[in-house]
Every structure is written in C-alpha cells, then in structure tokens.
C-alpha cells in the first residue's frame, strides 16, 4: 500500500489581472503544446506510487473535469481510491497566496479520515516542475520533521503570489508572501502526517479563513517544519509573462533536456495524426505537437495540437494553443494566441519582448 494520499488544491486565483487566466482555472491552463498545468502535480504524485488523489475544484471546473475525466491517463481509475473530485468552499480563495485554505481542507475532512495512508502530500497546480515525491517523503521520514516543505532558492525577485519561508538551520521560523532574490520559495509541495493534519484542522477551526502555513505562523516553535531543497527546472506560473517564459524557456536544448530528464509527465491522450510538415515549410527552434499542419514559417515558438500555419504565414517567438489557424500571409510575433482562434489572412499580431500580446480564447 502506498504510504501517502495526495491533495491538489485547484481553486484559487492569482494576484495578476492578466486576462490570460480569465477564461479558465489556472490548473487547466494549457502548457507546452499538450499539457495542462495540473498534469505536473498529478504526475508527480502518481509517479511516487500514490493512487489516492483528491482535487479541490474551482467554481469554473468544466475544463478541468473535461481534462482529468476518471483519472485514467494518470492510472487513477482505481477500484478503491483513485481520483476524488472535491468541492471548494463557496467563495474560493480569492485572496493572494492562500492556496491551502483551512476551510477547504475542513470541508473535505472525510477525504483525510476515510483513507488510512500515513502521509498526506499537499500540492497545487502553479509550478512547472518534475518532483520526486518519493524522495520528499523519504527525506521527511529521515529528518523526523512534523511537516516537510519543498523549496527552491529564488534566483531573482519574483511574484507576490509565491510563498517564502524564513529558516534557521533548515527549520522554518516564519512564512511570508512574495519572493525576493535568494529567499526560499515554497513550491507548494509539502508532506505531513495525516493524523497531524487532522489535529491541525481541528485546532485551527476558528481561523479557517487562513492558509494552513499562514495559521502555522504562531506555531512554528511548536512544530518542526523542515525545508527540503529542490534541484532541477522549476517555474512558477502566476502571470502572463511567467506563463510565456515557461513555454519559451523549453526551446533551449539544455533546459529541455533537464525538463525531460525528470519523471514522465502524463496527460490526457488524444487521437491526433503526427504533425505534418508540408513541402516548403520552414520550422526551427520550436516545439510542435501532433496534429499540426505547417505550410508556412515557425521560429522560436510552441505550437499546441491541431494548429494550422498556412502558406506564407509566419509565427515567431509565440505560443499558439490548440486549434489555432494562422491564415495565409498572417504574421504573429511575441504573442500568446489562445485556443481555436483563426488569425485572418494578411493580419499582423505583434507584441513586444516586454509586453506579450494575448489573444483570448475564441
């Protein structure tokens, strides 16, 4: 029997007002041509042998349920256990930073009582990273901590949505919002004993509007919360620019190799033909998903499934989500084009390096 159950909270918004997140929950945001952001948390949990995963859903859950289905593509269609689709509280977490809202956990207390595994692995869907959760649990056991949080030292100032921990000898002293250079950024992966989590939920019942780690701020002296440091490619996604960069980053062969060297990321299977490169097309430094048909020119871009780039069209430094059609002679540069948009013949859609153009879902 696996040692742990997994929880993914998918029901929070970001501080960013970028409309790139307006059409769907962050968890079902398409990524790298064929994934949804939630695939990373799901795959990381499942790759560690976890077969009981609860997902706390946002109000606009349609796209997310459509994607995960019965959990089959992650081996979560089990006779016992498997995937649990669970409700979030009425108003969701509209506040910055709260991603493990206590009232969401309390509302789904049954998930933590009916499953008897020793640990709970908490996670969210905002971080692109391939995490060895098995090792995280082993580290947790070896250190004898009450809670182990996965962190990475920030290489630059970062987003207000990212949580950071102040530590002393690897032990957490306090938790804060927003990340500055060299601080320990929380990757939203944590291991906690199931019984302890239940105790905490009971004792924090009066302050259930807080995030679990926020509520622990007065208790870090009492509980040993230890940091496990993450190595490998990691990208938090909380706004348009970080989303764009997390796609384009992967066009570097070294980054791509590092990304691909982690455990495999599973996603929903689709029946697309292979991508078809027509005679005379020009493609370089790009990621091209199956079902694409390319007649024109594609450079430095990430193309989702079933994209068509017609003759004479050009796509540069852009992220095209599934089903986008770029008509003859159209030009796209420095842009994110959301699902199923048809870019008319001869039109130009250009952003700049600093201000990426976003065309919302059609």
């Amino acid at each position, binding site marked *: 029997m696996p040692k742990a159950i997994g929880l993914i909270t998918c029901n929070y918004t970001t501080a960013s007002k970028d409309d790139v997140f307006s059409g769907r929950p962050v968890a079902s945001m398409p990524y790298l041509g*064929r994934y949804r952001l939630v695939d990373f948390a799901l795959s990381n949990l499942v790759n560690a042998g976890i077969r009981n995963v609860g997902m706390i859903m946002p109000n606009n859950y349609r796209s997310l349920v459509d994607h995960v289905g019965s959990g089959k*593509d992650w081996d979560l269609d089990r006779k016992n256990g498997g995937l649990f689709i669970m409700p979030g509280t009425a108003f969701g977490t509209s506040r910055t930073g709260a991603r493990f809202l206590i009232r969401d956990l309390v509302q789904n207390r049954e998930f933590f009582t009916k499953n008897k595994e020793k640990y709970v692995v908490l996670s969210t869907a905002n971080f692109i990273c391939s995490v060895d959760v098995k090792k995280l649990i082993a580290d947790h056991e070896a250190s004898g901590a009450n809670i182990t949080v996965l962190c990475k030292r920030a290489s630059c100032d970062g987003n207000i949505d990212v949580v950071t921990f102040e530590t002393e000898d690897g032990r957490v002293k306090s938790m804060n919002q927003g990340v500055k250079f060299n601080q320990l950024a929380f990757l939203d992966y944590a291991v906690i004993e199931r019984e302890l989590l239940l105790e905490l939920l009971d004792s924090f019942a009066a302050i259930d509007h807080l995030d679990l780690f926020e509520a622990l701020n007065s208790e870090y002296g009492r509980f040993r919360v230890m940091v496990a440091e993450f190595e490998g490619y990691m990208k938090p996604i909380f706004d348009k620019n970080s989303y764009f960069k997390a796609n384009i980053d992967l066009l570097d062969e070294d980054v791509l190799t590092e990304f691909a060297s982690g455990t495999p990321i599973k996603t*929903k299977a689709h029946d697309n*033909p292979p991508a078809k490169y027509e*005679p005379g097309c020009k493609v*370089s430094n790009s990621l091209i998903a199956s079902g694409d048909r390319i007649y024109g020119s594609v450079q430095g871009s990430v193309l989702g499934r079933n994209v068509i780039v017609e003759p004479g069209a050009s796509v540069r430094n852009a992220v095209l989500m599934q089903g986008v059609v770029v008509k003859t002679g159209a030009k796209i540069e420095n842009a994110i084009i959301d699902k199923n948009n048809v870019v008319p013949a001869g039109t130009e859609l250009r952003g700049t390096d600093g201000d990426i153009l976003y065309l919302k879902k059609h």
Partner: protein
Amino acid sequence: MLLAGGQGSRLGVLTSKVAKPAVSFGGKYRIIDFVLSNCANSGISTVGVLTQYRPYLLHEYLGTGEAWNLDERDGGVAILPPFATQTGASWYAGTADAITQNLGYLEGQDAEYVLILSGDQLYRMDYEDMLATHKANNADLTVAVMPVPWEDAPRFGIMNCADDGRIEEFVEKPAEPKSNLASMGIYIFNADLLINTLKEDDKDPDSTHDFGGDIIPKLLAAGKRLYTYQFKAYWRDVGTVASFHEANMELLGAEPEFDLFAQDAPIMSNSSTLPPAYVGPKGSVDDSLVDNGCAIMGTVEHSVISAEVYVGKNAIVKDSILFPGAIVEDGAVVINAIMAERSVVKAGAHFGSADEETVTLGDDAVVEKGE
C-alpha cells in the same frame, strides 16, 4: 473476427520480433490500428483478434481495446491466440481453421453476421455500408472486392461476377483473368452458415482450411448466394518492403490519397503521452510527418518519423521511415531506409542510398561508421 496472426515474412527484419499487424506505420500507428479504427467507426463493438506469430507486442498494444473505444462490458476486444484442449493443441493451420478453433467464442456472441477481416491492410471502410449491401442482396456471403489494374490481376484472387454483383466463379491467381475484381480478404457471412460450413470443412481431410482456397469454392459449388461489395477508395496490402515504404511515402505531399487528418473517420491508436516534437535551432523538417517526443537537431526531408526519434546535429534523413525510438546520431546520413524500433545509426555512419533498393534495419540493430 480479425485475423492478426500472420508473420509477414516478406517484410524481413521488420517482422523479426513483431507480428505484421504490430509493425509501426505512418509515424504514430501500428498497422492493425486502421482495421480496428474502421471497426470502431463502423459501430462494431465486438471484435475477436486472432493472434499467433510473435504476439507479445500485439497483445500488449491491444490491451483492453480502450484506445479504439472497444473496452465494452459486453463484447469489446477478445484476444484469441491458439490454445490447448483435452485432446491436444495445434497452431492455426489456415485462415478458416483459426476461426474454426474459436467457434466457441463465436457461438457465444450470438451474432447474426460475422465480418472476417485482415489485420494487415491499410484502408478506410464503413463496414455498415458493406453490411447494407449484404442485406439488400439477401446474400449468404459478401466478399469485398476492388478493381486492380489488369496486368496485376494474375497476382490476386479474382471474382468473376454477374452484372448484379453475384459471384459466378472464383479463381485464385488466374493466368488469364476474366475480370479485374480482386478479393480484399474481407468477408461478411451469415453467422449460421459460417459456423456450419467451418464445422464441415474441419472434417474434410483434403481441405487446407483457407477462406479463399476452400470455403468460397465450396459455398459456390453448393449454390449459395455469394455477392461482391465493390470498394473503390484507397487500399494497400503492405506485404513487401517496397510496398510498405511506398505506402508510407504516399502519406506525404500536399494532397495524399489517404488523409490521416480526415475528421469523419479518425484513425485511433494506443499511443503514449509524450511532449511535442522539438525542432532544434539548426534543425529543419520538410515534407514529413513527425510524431510527439522527437528531437530533430539535423535535417529531415520527405520522411515519416515516429515517436521519440532522435536525429542528431548535421545528420540527414531523407526518403526514410523511422520507427519509435530510432536514433540517427550526429552527422549520420540515412537515405531511402526503414529503421525499426530503437535501431541506431552511429555518428558519421551512412545507411541506405537513393540509387539502390530500400534498406531495412531491425529492432535494436546498430549501424557503425564504416559498416
């Protein structure tokens, strides 16, 4: 009933480790995908797959049949390899014998009609339409046929028919054909007739237990109502290395005769979920099919590239078919070749040439520089 036990010996090293229906095709598929997708798209939900030669990969690939929406509680895919009984065990001796040995399965399905298929052909057909013809003719057996060029007719089983499509004579590989309607090896039988005929044929010591050679001539002699169903679209039996290569190349170009992208009858496959293909900064791809999970750092022209293929820097791949996991190392040149699964052409090595016949490299085989 889908016959998928054939070795496909004329494909040489390509079938040294897998059965012909499990051979990779078109960058994303295995040959059996086309027939299974036809079944699913025609509303057939019960398919018995008869396997025999090197069945492991085929069995694994078929799984529960869910990739083709054939994982049904009542029916779905049943894998039917040869088996032992109280009186002994035997291999499938012919196409008809394979069905005869599985009459227990067939009778258990309580079907009115039985469609007999081959797992090694490429075509899109709506079997519903063929069944409608069968019913309209009040036929006992309907044989799918297609017109072939007259000069090729002596290589096929030829049906000589009346104007209304009723079969009057069946001649296997006639020297002087009277018709150019070739049997495609696709049959619809009335189930009771099939079961009874197979039981009788089983007792005939002179029979080779083959549909074309024995069953059809016997039914004709017995005066049964045998009709043809004419099929005029794309159909290929990829029996040889040359025809296999040609059928893959026919998927390329601006308007291929067989369109993998046709929406109304999608070809489904049991593929794994992989990241999109990466075309490197110095990589270039022209007139090709490339599946997910590939990294193309060199040049690919007029080729079919399956999942997780790696083409190294300054490497050239042209007029070739690369099966899943094949590796062309830096500076290697692969021309007019078929590289089977996980095969490797080492850095700087050359494999194949435009002036000679298509060369093949078996599963896991390696070509060193200077070989």
